[in-house]
């Protein structure tokens, strides 16, 4: 939806949801839409663990937003 509106986007999802996330992108007509995955789960994490997981994905997020 955002890509169609003309803004580059990246979606962060936990690794448990990669397959449905790709399937959604496919039915919406964006089979090459890119995701950054972080290990599942997120809902039960504390501050320090979030900090660590985010540090591991920063480079991927930058890459997807700047290079097609």
């Amino acid at each position: 939806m955002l890509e169609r509106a003309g803004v580059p986007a990246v979606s962060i999802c936990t690794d448990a949801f990669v397959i449905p996330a790709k399937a959604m992108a496919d039915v919406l007509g964006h089979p090459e839409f890119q995701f950054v995955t972080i290990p599942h789960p997120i809902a039960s994490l504390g501050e320090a663990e979030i900090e660590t997981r985010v540090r591991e994905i920063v480079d991927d997020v930058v890459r997807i937003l700047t290079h097609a």
Partner: protein
Amino acid sequence: MTAAAELPLVDIDELRRVIEDYFERGWTDGLPVMPVTESILAEFLSQTARDPDEVLLAMPHLNRACTVRLAAINAAMAGCRPEYFPVVLAAWTALKAENYVTRGIWQSTTGTAPMLLVNGPVREQIGLNSKGNVFGSGFRANATIGRAIRLTALNAFGLRPGELDQATQGNPAKYTACIAENEEDSPWPAFHVEHGFRAEDSTVTALTMRSVAHIEARHTTVPEQLAIDLAGTISRTGALIHETISACIALGPEHAHLLARAGWSKDDLRRFVFEHAVNMREALAAAGKDAVSGKTRWRLSSGHAEAVPDSTPDADVVRALGCEEAVQIVVAGAHNAGVSAVIETFGPRGGPPAIAAVERLSAR
């Protein structure tokens, strides 16, 4: 060798090849389907005045829609007879009115499935079971009408497990779930009459179910004791993802008559269950569900960073139901034991149920 000559002879290689072909294309729910061609489809479409291209339900977020034609193909594949098709169509109308399906509920980790409730004369006309084994197997109309909805979800909407359906576990109703009310053994007005339809109307009610919890209460003739069992099942903390829950009580006829003999109406039972489906605040705290998320309103611990107080933060006794209307009541099953069930549903946590009339063709 008894009457072998009377059993049909088939071209087994061809039959088997066709059935296997459906499996290879991924067009089944894991069970064999009935092959469907244009002439079979035409028999189904002749059961309705509706346009084959009419969209019954669209899921714009999936870029998919189910037309009358697609619903008919899948109903035939599910094993429905053509005369069941108006019930299938009413089910789609009710599911659309219920409004959970278009919000991605069939894709959810929760793993809900549609549960259909049929009322009125169509039950007799097409042989829908409302008595013994009402949730069980052995009845073509029940089995195939419920399956028609699920096959359509898999085929027309592409909601396949591991792809667009993310259910953590799902539930057995993902194969089929269609019951009829045992109006004949009920001491009260039928469910559809209670909600403003005429007794001679046939209707389908759509529920989004999470589970069917079994109630054993063979021990009592005291209405309050039975109602406490029902309320206690509804209020279990494991069911509380949201602040409150909704449920449909499927009373066995014996239980319905026990209540009616004591002078209870459906509304009396509803009121009692609403008052008694509660948890002590400390029991919720012990399960880490004594507050809600400020964003989703899902229950979580008051110690969580996103926690805000629930609707009744000062109450020591916390209701599991938001209002009396969050409980629906039907009568189903055989009149042979003190057994009932609570169908745990996903909304509406208040407001009327989603009921659609079954179309009657005048020129039949």
